[in-house]
Every structure is written in C-alpha cells, then in structure tokens.
C-alpha cells in the first residue's frame, strides 16, 4: 500500500540543486498572490502593540483560548463521528431509506452556521416555545427545572457539528466509494469482521480524505463569527474582531490572528507528520460492485435512525423553523428585489467556484510535479485563508487594493488632472479575490486528495511517452478527477452563497446578496424577517448539493464506462 513516491524520483533531485520550473513558479506565484492579504495583516505583528497585551492577558485571553480549544475538540469529534459513520453505513450497508440518505445527508451543508443558530435559539431559549410550554404545562418557575442552555459552548458545538459534518461525510464517502474491493476481500480472508474491517482497513485507507474533511470543518469552525457571537461564546475570532474594531488595536488584533494561524498550521502539519511518509495508493484497478452488508430488523432500524438524525436536526428542523418564521412574519421585500439578491448571489458564487477550482488544480499539480519544501509550503500558505475570519481577509484585501487605487488616483491626478476613482476596491474583482483567498483550501483539499489517489505510475507512463506535464494534466488527470473537481466547485459555490463578512465589507454600491439581506435584518434584530433570505440561501444551496450527490454516486470508477479520453 505504501509505495515509495515515484514522483519524487521523477523530479530532478540528484543534482542537489532544486529547480522550480514553470509549474513550480506558477504554484509559488499563485500562493504569493493568495497569501498577500493574510501576510499584509500579519505584517502588523511587527508593530509593537504596547500594554494592550498585558490587558488582554489579564482579562480575556484565557477565555478565548479555552473556548476555541473546546470548540475544536468538540466539533472535531462530532463531525468525525457523524460524517464517517454515516458515510460507511450508506456505502457499505443495505437498509431501508439508504437511497434517500445518500444525498439527504449532504443537505445540512446548505445551512449557514449563523442561520441554524438563529433557528434553534428561537426554539430552545428560555423565552422560546419549548421552555414556555414546559413551564406552563408543569407550572414551573425559573428555578424549578434544568434545561440545557442553547447559547453556550455546548450548544455551539452541537449546532456546528450538525451543519459541518457533511464535509467529512462527502470526502470519506468518496473515499469509501473509490476503495478497491481487493483490499476489503483480503481483509475478510484474514478473518476481519465488519467492525474491524471498518476500523482497521477502510478508515486508515480513507484517512487522508477524512482528515481533509475534518480540517475543512474545523477551519470553518475557527473562522465562524456569526454563530459564536450570537451565542456569546468568545473565541479567537470574536476576540480578533473586538480587538481590531472595538479596542481599535490593530497590531494586537493581527497578533491574535497570527496566533490562530500558527495554531492551524501546527494542526495541519501534525496531521501530515503523523502520516509521515506513509502514502496510500490503490495499486490495482480492479473495481467491482462493492460487497454490501444486508441489515435487517433492529440493525436496519438503528442504521436508519443514525442516518436520519443528522438530516432532521441539521436540515429539516431548522428549515421548518425558518419556514414557520417566514410565514409568521416574513420579509416584505420578498418578490422582484429578491430575484436581484438571488441573482447576485448566484453569479458571485459561480465565478468564485470556477476560479478557485482552476487555481486549486494548478497548485496541487505544481506540488505533485515539484515535491519540494518550497512548493509544499506555498500550497499550505495559499490555503491558510480558510481559517482566517472573513472580516480579517476583507481588511487584508482592502489594504493592498486600496493602496493601488490611491496610487493610481494620485498618479492620474498629477499627470492628467483627473481622478478615476476606485478601480479595484468595491468591485467584483475585490470580492472574487477575497473569496478565493478564503476558500481555496476547500477546493485544494478536495483536488489534492483526489490527485493523491492517482498512482504516480500514470504520470510516469505519460511522461515516458513524451507528453508534456500540462497535457498530461489535461488528458490524464483531469478526466479521472472530474468528479472531485465538480465536488470542489460545488463546495465553494455553497460556501460563497453563505459567506458574509467579506461580502458585506467589499461589495460594490447598490449590490446586495441573499446573505447580506439576511444579515441586515438579523443585525437589526428582525430575525423573523431575516428568515426569508435565510430560507432562500438554503433553497439555492440545496440544488447544487443534490446535483453533486447524484454525480458522486455515479462516479465510482469501474461502475461506469472508462473515463472519456
């Protein structure tokens, strides 16, 4: 299983000197461009922050750290359990409803964390219908009963796990689908039962994919602002925001952001290190229909419940609550202006998805061709943005683009006596740039995981036949990865649909999206009215998610015809 890297030996290593070559330069170039906004913010680190650190240290820092760690551990465990478990059930077992769950399990992906937070709080808080009913039914007073506090660290962990597990489900399911029957059969021959086969063979084999999914979910957790702010759980992200905008201490805020980034970097590197040189390739191309366990009776029921719970709690219930709110007190702008919001959301999401996937392919292929610390570091740096709060990225985008705009204006004023105004900031260019910075990790992780599963022999054969690296990518890798590229695009699409802080700061004049509309109403404490836009985000998000799911179940190699040349 653990083949030594053929690629590494294909790269000119023996000379002792390392040449980046065209792909390497391209990879590093993209990485620099995408890392710029983050680096610009981090450059504030070198400005002495003065006594503010003493203040943070004495007062709030320990709370930020504990909450952030708690959130990471909790959500990490939650998404792994739900995501891997349901993926295995759906791929390897036969039970009633499996066909529906296969795609329905992805639905919570369309629900933004801040939206599920609004919906559940309305339901479960002290003043909400559930507790009010209990109090009236049993004539309880405030102190007569215990009820879990929804606005708490535990509440945040539960709700985030419910909407973020699809990342893990998606990637580990793809890995399970793509696994070779041979491995499983060998496992069975050696007398492994289903459980040990799952834990001992399938999970380790799918580990890069699972880790990729968990990493996505955790980075999404780290940069979440809306939900934790609403719940009053102070994390690094809310801390950065408060320090930057509330205390006006930009240097200290950047230093907090730097801490967060170092933490993420260490986390990612630890995962890589723990896999060390173990690289997993399927070396045979033998794919048959996967053998499935037929579940009956209680076991079938349990499997059914296990798959239904995340869908109901992560999608059906919150969507139902939103619908109820919408019917009770919806947005009066619902109608033609709404079409405009939706159109803006769709356009932005599509453009950003295409750009991000193309760049992810280039970067991950560059890393594959030139396995060197420089390219690998470049790839990691380029995908750091996912863990950075959107508002920080927005500021990071504003600083260089605003500087360019100012310079252009000064120059034009001196030379031609005119001021052309803004060229980059406040345009779609700035928005798409910010989205790609923020979400490249999503497409990169997906593409990289998929590329990693293509045995290097393919490259070697193609190159031996005298085909260039670019053509090999286009004619060999891309067709094989088609499914994953599509998946990557859809993930970005849905992410951009939900994205808020960067959109709010960077968008052009008179330009609103569904998320912005939802935010405007929510920040004015009109949650019931915000439900209409929130529902629309969910609705628009479901369609690509379902399409993705159908495409994925068809993508098992060997089950369809050979990939088109």
């Amino acid at each position, binding site marked *: 299983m653990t083949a030594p890297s053929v690629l590494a030996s294909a790269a000119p290593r023996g000379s002792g000197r390392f040449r980046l070559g065209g792909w390497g330069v391209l990879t590093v170039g993209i990485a620099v461009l995408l890392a710029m906004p983050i680096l610009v913010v981090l450059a504030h680190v070198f400005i002495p922050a003065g006594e503010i650190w003493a203040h943070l240290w004495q007062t709030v820092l320990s709370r930020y750290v504990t909450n952030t760690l708690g959130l990471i551990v909790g959500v990490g465990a939650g998404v792994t359990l739900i995501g891997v478990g349901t993926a295995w059930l759906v791929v390897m077992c036969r039970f009633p409803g499996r066909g529906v769950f296969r795609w329905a399990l992805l639905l919570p992906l369309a629900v933004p964390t801040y939206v599920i937070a609004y919906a559940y*709080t309305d339901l479960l808080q002290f*003043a909400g219908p559930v507790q009010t009913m209990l109090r009236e039914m049993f004539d309880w007073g405030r102190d007569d009963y215990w009820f879990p506090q929804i606005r708490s660290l535990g509440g945040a962990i539960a709700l985030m796990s419910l909407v973020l597990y699809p990342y893990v489900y998606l990637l580990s399911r793809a890995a399970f689908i793509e696994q070779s029957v041979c491995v499983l059969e060998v496992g069975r021959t050696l007398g492994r039962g289903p459980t040990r086969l799952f834990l001992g063979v399938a999970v380790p084999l799918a580990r890069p994919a699972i880790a990729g999914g968990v990493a996505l979910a955790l980075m999404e957790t780290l940069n979440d602002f809306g939900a934790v702010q609403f719940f*009053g759980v*102070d994390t690094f992200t809310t801390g950065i925001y408060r320090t930057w905008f*509330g205390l006006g201490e930009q240097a200290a805020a950047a230093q907090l952001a730097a801490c967060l980034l170092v933490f993420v970097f260490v986390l990612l590197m630890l995962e890589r290190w723990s896999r060390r040189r173990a690289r997993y390739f399927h070396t045979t191309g033998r794919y048959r229909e996967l053998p499935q366990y037929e579940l009956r009776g209680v076991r079938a029921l349990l499997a059914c419940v296990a798959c239904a719970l995340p869908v109901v709690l992560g999608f059906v219930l919150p969507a139902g609550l939103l619908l109820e709110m919408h019917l009770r007190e919806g947005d009066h702008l619902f109608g033609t202006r709404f079409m405009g919001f939706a159109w803006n959301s769709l356009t932005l999401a599509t453009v950003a998805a295409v750009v991000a996937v193309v760049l992810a392919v280039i970067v991950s292929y560059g890393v594959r061709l030139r396995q060197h610390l420089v390219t690998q570091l470049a790839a990691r740096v380029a995908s750091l943005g996912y863990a950075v709060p959107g508002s920080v990225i927005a500021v990071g985008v504003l600083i260089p683009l605003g500087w360019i705009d100012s310079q252009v204006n000064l120059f034009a004023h001196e030379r031609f006596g005119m001021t052309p105004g803004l*060229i980059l900031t406040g345009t779609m260019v700035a928005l798409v740039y910010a989205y790609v910075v923020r979400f490249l990790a999503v497409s990169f992780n997906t593409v990289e995981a998929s590329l990693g599963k293509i045995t290097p022999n393919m490259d070697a054969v193609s190159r031996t036949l005298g085909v260039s690296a670019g053509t090999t990518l286009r004619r060999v890798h891309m067709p094989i990865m088609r499914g994953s590229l599509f998946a990557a695009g859809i993930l970005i699409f849905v992410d951009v649909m939900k994205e808020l*802080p960067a959109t709010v700061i960077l968008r052009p004049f008179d330009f609103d999206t569904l998320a912005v509309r939802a935010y405007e109403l929510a920040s004015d404490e009109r949650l019931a009215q915000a439900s209409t836009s929130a529902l629309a985000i969910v609705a628009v998000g479901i369609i690509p998610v379902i399409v993705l799911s159908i495409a994925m179940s068809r993508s098992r190699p060997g089950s369809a015809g050979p990939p088109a040349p």
Partner: protein
Amino acid sequence: MKPSPHRRGSRRPLPVLLIAILVAACSGPSGDELFVYSARHYDTDTQLFDDFTAQTGIRVRLLQGNSDELLERLNREGVASPADVLITVDAGRLWRAEQAGVLQPVESEVLAERVPAHLRHPNGYWFGFSQRLRLIYYNRDAFDPGQVTTYEDLADPSLDGRICVRSSNNIYNQSLLASMVSHHGAAAATEWARGLVANLARAPQGGDTDQILGVAAGECELGVANHYYYVRLLNSEDPDRRAAAERVGIIFPNQDDRGLHVNVGGAGVVRGAPNREHAVRFLEYLASDEAQALFAEGNHEYPVVPGIALDPAIEAWGDFRRDQVNVAELGRHNPEAVRIADRVGWR
C-alpha cells in the same frame, strides 16, 4: 494537438473583459450623484433617499454595512474613495470615524440652528439626526418598579441574579458605560460595572430584543435595551410578541438628576468627498421637517429637531429629562469603557 488560430482567438475574452471592467470602473462618479455609506439598516431609509432625489435631482448611491467595517473600508480607500457621506448609529462610532480622520468639518447655519448643540460634534465633524433612549425594563408580575430609579441602582447588591444585559461587545452598552465614566470617573464606573455583572441573571447573550423577551418570560426581572426595540415588540405582527411586550413595564431612569442616557444616529461629510456640496445639502435635508419625521417614524426614534410629531407609541410616554452631556463625550470615553468591561468580566 496544435491550437488552431481560431482557438487562440477564443482566449482573448479575459483581457478584454478586464479592460472593460477597468473602463467601466474608471468612468467613476459622474454628475449629480451622492455616494452614501450607511450603517443603518432600516428599509424606511430608502424613502429618505428617494425624497432627497425627488427634491434635488441628486441620485443617491448606497452602500450599507457594519459601522466598524465601513469605517475600515473608508480608511483604506483613502483619496480614491467615492464616499461623500457616512451615516452611522451611536456616538461611539461617530467619534471613532472622526478620530480615524475620515470626516471633515462642516459649517452650516441650517444645521447649527436645527440640531441641538449637545447632539452634534462641537466642530461640525458630525451631526446627530435621531435620538434613541436606553431604558430599563421590568417584569410587571415580579418586580416593583419603585426599587430602581437610576442606572446606578442596577449595581445594587439586592438585585443579585435578577438582571438581563447583553454583551459589552455591543456599542450601546459601551456608550452607556462611557456615560458612567463621563459622569462619575473611571474608578466609579468600574465599580458600577462590577456590581452590574454580579447581578446578572444569565451570561450576557443575544440582542436588545432578547433582553426584553427575557424579562417578559421571567428569566430575569430587569433588563436594559434601547426604546425602539420595545416599541417594535408592541407593534409586532406576531401576537406572542405583543403579549410579551405587555408583560413588561418601563423605567425612565435618573429623572431626579442628570436624566436618562441618550444616544444618536448621525452623519458626517467624508473627507475628500467628491461631491461635497451635495453632501452638505444632504445633511441639511436630514435636518428638515420631512426627513426628521421619516427618521422618527421609520424606527420609532426621537427626532432631534423640536416640534416634529412623534410616533404615537412613544408620544404616549410623555416628556422626560434627558442627559445633556455632549454625545461626543461618549465617544471619547469609549476605549476606556471597553477596557473596564474586560476588567470586570462583562463579556
């Protein structure tokens, strides 16, 4: 496969598109337009802009967003910014904008005459156009309102575990705390905040509306929130919300001394505004009778110009004494207030 000449041609759209975008962007602000950055999210503001356009022929281009982030954007756009006017809520934010150097002073007889002195910046960097009151609410069934008559009373140990207040991340609370600093000094304000935090019924959470609903549901007996959130509940389409508001009574604090804490929604002209004249004209329009009525009506706020008809719901409350400290003071003490909140663990 060699690319045919035809194929090669098809690769050109990208640069062409880029140039088109540049050209479109460069055409920039033209003629009679006014670029407004607004942190108010009220749909009725649209009517305000439409009216202005109808009166003057100047088209309003709008960018809504969060105050702090809009400010950051203004800052970064620098000389290239198309912005003419910044509208935001809370004196703390207006002060921050002035401190960041993104506003310019305006001298206008109309504004000086119509906007009371304590509701605008002494040098004309910004002007308040609506007033919002930070009130105390009590549960009619559980609390005797005579017990609390001032903000200071909220720190009284007898109220242990009975108060709902939202996070100090919220600028309204920062400004309330800043007003305590302004009147009593930092040390006393810290003591007050410490006492208040000790009296909380639950960890600070949710928005202003949630504090009132918490009081209505009996989770706490007292809450602090801006007045228009309460009015909004009273006027809600949802009968449950109206019923909740009915269960809540209002305390107008500090009527026997300095008066209750008032904040403003306001606006200023952006430094380097390309259309400065239009911008000043817009501010003057905001102080006009029509605009003041719209401002008040849209969000149940109090106009700054005396003599404008009030929203019926708040007119019934009658008149009361308001704190006359210049709202610019609230901004000046804002950073201190945030630190005090951190120190006493008001999250």
